[in-house]
């Protein structure tokens, strides 16, 4: 009898708290979003599953010597996993469209207003007494507006590890929601005529330019915003391996086995931060609310910048591609294309939108560098 009692006390049925139950349900919800709604499944499946594992009572998984705690210590607290993912993304990125039309970089700059206005929003929430965010925390929340997963995770692991779970969940969820969040804003800010603007066909970019660009980018970062060098450095390294064409086997591994492994470990590690005490707090609500505002403002400023540029240039830009400046590669570029087709079924904007789309990645990395350097 005594042994039965001991057993009963060891079961999850006995030990499970309401907090843990809610977190397990949230984990299942993330899996549902990832599998059925196809919300960024590559990250949300490991995050959701890791979140469930982390809230199983009576066993050390996300704490102590548990396996997820070890993954987390190995690659999340150290920044290694997001940097490896970023290297792999670099090895998959084609800067061709951006090089063909460099001025679209300004769209990728403008869309980063989302980051900084969210930072201000977080501080405003402090002002009205809702929360008590530090500057570093506000900066980490702001980075959700960068619409770039590994950057958001990297920045929060440095500035506000205690908010990492909520920030990562918000960042990936809203990236998946881009097709819902962006179109109404894009339609509201543009006339039908603007949406019909056809852009000039893109010039072909030589391989030499593609090889040199990651080096030019890295050197400029080194000279101006060194704080962005770890992130952008790994990104440029991946891109150089791809474009130089003499290390195809390394580039292939960076794009496949290595990024996949890093993604699995990164997702599980982020999942290990979904423990009730850290996630079931009012701040999470604030983060979710601020995150959607961030995406909205980024979309808005991207579109407006395109309209502003059209005032001064004769080669008109279709302002829809400004929305792609938030990053969320390649979803936001596809959304720009889709909204464009609504007004003119023969106007394919996807290649034009890829330029601001990858510029948005650069822009949010620079913003991340500034935040890490000055908000830490």
């Amino acid at each position, binding site marked *: 009898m005594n042994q039965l009692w001991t057993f009963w006390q060891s079961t999850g049925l006995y030990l499970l708290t309401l907090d843990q139950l809610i977190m397990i349900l949230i984990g299942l919800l993330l899996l549902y979003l990832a599998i059925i709604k196809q919300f960024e499944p590559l990250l949300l499946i490991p995050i959701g599953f890791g979140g469930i594992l982390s809230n199983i009572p009576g066993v050390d998984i996300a704490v102590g010597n548990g396996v997820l705690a070890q993954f987390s210590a190995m690659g999340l607290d150290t920044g290694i996993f997001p940097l490896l993912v970023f290297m792999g993304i670099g090895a998959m990125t084609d800067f061709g469209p951006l090089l063909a039309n460099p001025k679209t970089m300004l769209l990728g700059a403008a869309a980063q207003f989302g980051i900084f206005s969210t930072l201000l929003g977080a501080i405003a929430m402090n002002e009205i007494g809702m929360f008590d965010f530090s500057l570093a925390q506000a900066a980490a929340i702001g980075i959700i507006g960068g619409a770039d997963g590994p950057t958001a995770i990297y920045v929060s692991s440095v500035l506000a590890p205690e908010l990492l779970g909520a920030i990562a969940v918000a960042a990936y969820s809203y990236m*998946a929601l881009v097709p819902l969040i962006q179109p109404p804003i894009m339609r509201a800010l543009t006339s039908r005529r603007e949406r019909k603007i056809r852009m000039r066909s893109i010039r072909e970019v030589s391989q030499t330019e593609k090889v040199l660009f990651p080096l030019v980018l890295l050197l400029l970062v080194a000279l101006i915003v060194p704080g962005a060098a770890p992130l952008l450095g790994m990104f440029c390294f991946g891109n150089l391996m791809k474009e130089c064409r003499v290390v195809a086997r390394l580039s292939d591994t960076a794009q496949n086995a290595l990024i996949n492994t890093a993604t699995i470990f990164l997702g599980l590690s982020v999942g290990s931060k979904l423990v009730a005490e850290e996630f079931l707090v009012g701040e999470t609500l604030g983060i979710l609310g601020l995150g959607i505002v961030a995406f909205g403002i980024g979309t808005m400023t991207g579109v407006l910048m395109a309209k502003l540029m059209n005032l001064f240039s004769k080669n008109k830009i279709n302002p829809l591609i400004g929305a792609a400046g938030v990053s969320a590669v390649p979803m936001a570029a596809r959304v720009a294309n889709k909204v464009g087709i609504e007004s003119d079924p023969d106007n394919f904007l996807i290649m034009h939108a890829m330029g601001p789309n990858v510029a948005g990645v650069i822009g949010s990395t620079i913003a991340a560098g500034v935040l890490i350097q000055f908000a830490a």
Partner: protein
Amino acid sequence: MENLLNQGVGLALFGMVTVFSFLTLLILATRLMSFLVSQIDSEEESVLVDEDSLPDSSPPIAVIAAAVTYYLSKKQS
């Protein structure tokens, strides 16, 4: 020594009972799951893995917010 023997017998019995109970429950849970799936599947076409689907218009992310809110409200009361 006697003690170890007792412990061992206890652990063996108890372990075997646990394994059997667990797998019996798993049979029941699996059957229930399969039954529910067959019910749902007969109503609608398979919902899984529709490559072209974009997220629909009622973002379930709101559910997370709702869950946290509900939880916090209960906690404070």
